[in-house]
């Protein structure tokens, strides 16, 4: 057993909260550069140049790239040989969010009750997903998630008879309906299989893959390509002003499912596709 003080988790989460919001990943920056070169619409090109400039300013001045600094979603891979000491695990994560969002001048966007809507004022609680894995390390991934794109996401309990076409249509249709609202160009996370709650989790997890890294299964990698092409053929374009780049990538995660069902989920991420990792 390796003992790990939960204070290390707090420190890591606090730092990642800031880093994720200030420093856009190189994979996304490269996708913007490609967009700037290849986008056919002049307004769309202008959008890519603004997004590149925005990412540069955020990085250099250490300010949030977007004012919606998101819900703090934490994915934790906890080694089964780790013994956590020094305090409560969940509270350690929330303390990290509290500190990171306050010290980092990030916006506090969480309300304590969906109806009463009083701001919790420190962006807590975090959404925490834990998987127990072999080993004695802890891998933390923080993915702040903006409201505009989250609101355009969907779960569909499709019928097995709908097959691959049913999945493709559901995904393309969800992005089509979202139109300009999730700040395109978007990254599309797709979950396929599992159960009602598992499929939504898979869609969100798919967004953590580096942009452009295909699904390891060649069949699903092809399906990702097909969906990306169909989405870009919608013509929505950067910011919805019309153009060839509506999505920068489609990333799909698959899981076995019940004989009677074929769940699918689409989690749309905006171009402010933020996630940072840390291993303790």
């Amino acid at each position, binding site marked *: 057993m390796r003992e790990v003080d939960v204070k290390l988790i707090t420190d890591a989460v606090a730092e990642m909260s800031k880093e994720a919001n200030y420093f856009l990943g190189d994979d996304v920056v490269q996708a913007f550069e490609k967009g700037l070169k290849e986008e056919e619409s002049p307004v769309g090109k202008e959008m890519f140049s603004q997004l590149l400039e925005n990412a540069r*300013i955020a990085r250099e001045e250490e*300010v949030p*790239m977007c004012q919606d600094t998101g819900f703090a979603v934490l994915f934790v891979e906890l080694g089964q040989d780790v013994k956590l000491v020094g305090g409560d695990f969940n509270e350690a994560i929330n303390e990290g969010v509290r500190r990171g969002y306050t010290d980092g001048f990030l916006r506090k966007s969480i309300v304590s009750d969906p109806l009463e809507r009083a701001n919790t004022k420190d962006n807590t609680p975090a959404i925490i997903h834990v998987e127990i894995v072999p080993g004695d390390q802890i891998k933390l991934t923080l993915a702040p998630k903006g*409201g505009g794109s989250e609101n355009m996401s969907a779960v569909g309990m499709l019928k097995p008879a709908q097959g691959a076409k049913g999945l493709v249509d559901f995904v393309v249709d969800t992005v089509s309906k979202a139109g300009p609202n999730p700040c395109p160009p978007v990254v599309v996370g797709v979950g396929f299989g599992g159960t009602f709650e598992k499929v939504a989790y898979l869609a969100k997890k798919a967004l953590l893959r580096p942009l452009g890294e295909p699904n390891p299964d060649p069949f699903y990698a092809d399906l990702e390509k097909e969906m990306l092409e169909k989405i870009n*053929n919608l013509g929505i374009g950067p910011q*919805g*002003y019309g153009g060839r780049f509506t999505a920068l990538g489609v990333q799909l995660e698959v899981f076995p499912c019940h004989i009677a069902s074929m769940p699918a989920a689409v989690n749309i991420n*905006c171009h402010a596709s933020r996630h940072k990792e840390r291993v303790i």
Partner: protein
Amino acid sequence: MEPKRISAPLTDEMIMELKAGDNLLISGVIYTGRDAAHKKLVELLEKGEEWPVDLKGQIIYYVGPTPAKPGQVIGSAGPTTSGRMDSYTPAVLKYGIKAVIGKGARDESTRKAFQEYKGVYLGATGGAGALLAKRIKDAEVVAYEELGPEAIRKLVVEDFPVTVINDAHGNDLYAEGRKQYAKA
């Protein structure tokens, strides 16, 4: 295409010259306002009472910035989703607001209101909060201080980049742009 330059107060004539798809640079004064402020302003209109600030001919920006870092005028300040203001927008256009800045689609009655009252819907780049904050040179609360980040602020901007989405002639960039670039 060179962007057009505009400053408030805006007149009907100035509005009629703007077309969906135009890139504009705004310099001068704009005002912030989102859900809570809109609610209050529309309640005043319904009661026939004066607004705490005269906003006739002015531009409203739907924004909820991050807290300013020491030395900053304002934190990151990109647009928020405009659809939440749809139920208030026709009334504020009727009052005399000439332009609103946000992101995302408007409903049909709001789109029609831009035509009816000679106003425009402008898009600022969603998610470009750091860039847009650099174009804001001054910020001062002018009404509803108690609303915190949702208070009405007077901003002084320089070369603030926006795109005309809905013009006063009934054109809609979202619909037209998409049609132009869609492939079967």
